[in-house]
């Protein structure tokens, strides 16, 4: 595949992720902050998000698995963090899950929280897979000597 085709594929894929709600405008903002002097900015931030999220999801699993009583303040604190980081990178569906999750924390509803945790894990996995696919496409483009296109915010 030649570079132009790969670039078009990348643009289409990014647009589809936004259209399907996986990513929002914030992700596009991140891309705008990337330049020749900071060519790995998006990958760096998103990689941090992956690390952070995996840690938080483990902490959440542990916190909700307490038979002696769940510390909802702790659970909420973890969800708040996850909500913040997913919002910062534009992982919209993960963020929306967190919003619902926090409401159930407030209600101290363990069962609902467990369901939310399942959902968040699913959404996180989806987001991660899609972002990794996107980054692979980027690597292919750059290996072929091309550059990552700029996406217009209004489409």
């Amino acid at each position: 595949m030649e570079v132009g085709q790969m670039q078009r594929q990348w643009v289409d894929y990014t647009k589809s992720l936004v259209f399907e709600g996986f990513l929002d405008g914030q992700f596009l903002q991140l891309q705008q902050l990337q330049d020749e002097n900071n060519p790995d900015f998006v990958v760096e931030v998103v990689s941090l998000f992956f690390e952070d999220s995996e840690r938080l999801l483990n902490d959440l699993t542990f916190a909700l698995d307490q038979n002696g009583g769940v510390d909802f303040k702790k659970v909420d604190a973890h969800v708040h963090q996850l909500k913040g980081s997913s919002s910062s990178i534009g992982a919209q569906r993960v963020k929306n899950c967190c919003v619902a999750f926090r409401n159930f924390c407030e209600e101290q509803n363990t069962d609902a929280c467990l369901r939310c945790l399942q959902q968040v894990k699913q959404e996180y996995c989806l987001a991660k897979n899609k972002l990794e696919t996107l980054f692979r496409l980027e690597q292919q483009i750059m290996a072929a000597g091309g550059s990552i296109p700029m996406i217009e915010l209004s489409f």
Partner: protein
Amino acid sequence: MAITSDAQFHVLAVDDSLIDRMLIERLLKTSSFHVTAVDSATKALKFLGLVEDDMRTFDTPSVASKFHQDVEVNLIITDYCMPGMTGYDLLRKIKESKSLKDIPVVIMSSENVPSRINRCLEEGAEEFFLKPVQQSDVNKLKPHLLK
């Protein structure tokens, strides 16, 4: 003949989230700010030369700032929700300090709570940005620095 160098404004960014620190730093650098990012309000106060000593019951900025005269901060941008000292506490400490009270402070928060926003503005914050912070927010900073 006086040589005028490009005045680069120095912003101190405070946020316990590494991702958000990376983001704000990139946003600020894109606008040609010089940036120092720290992960807590305590570290921010230390950087500013306002250290609360157990031995002292009052802050003596004139003594502390002697060691920090090279550190000039033109603006402080801080997250609201941080473990330990919050951004609001930091704002208050800065506004209570003779040496620091004129430094403009901007608060960031992921939560849109009107009472929180008002409290911060009343305490002297110049702006309140909702996270995730946008380039358009950062563009609003220069006027506060040129006052």
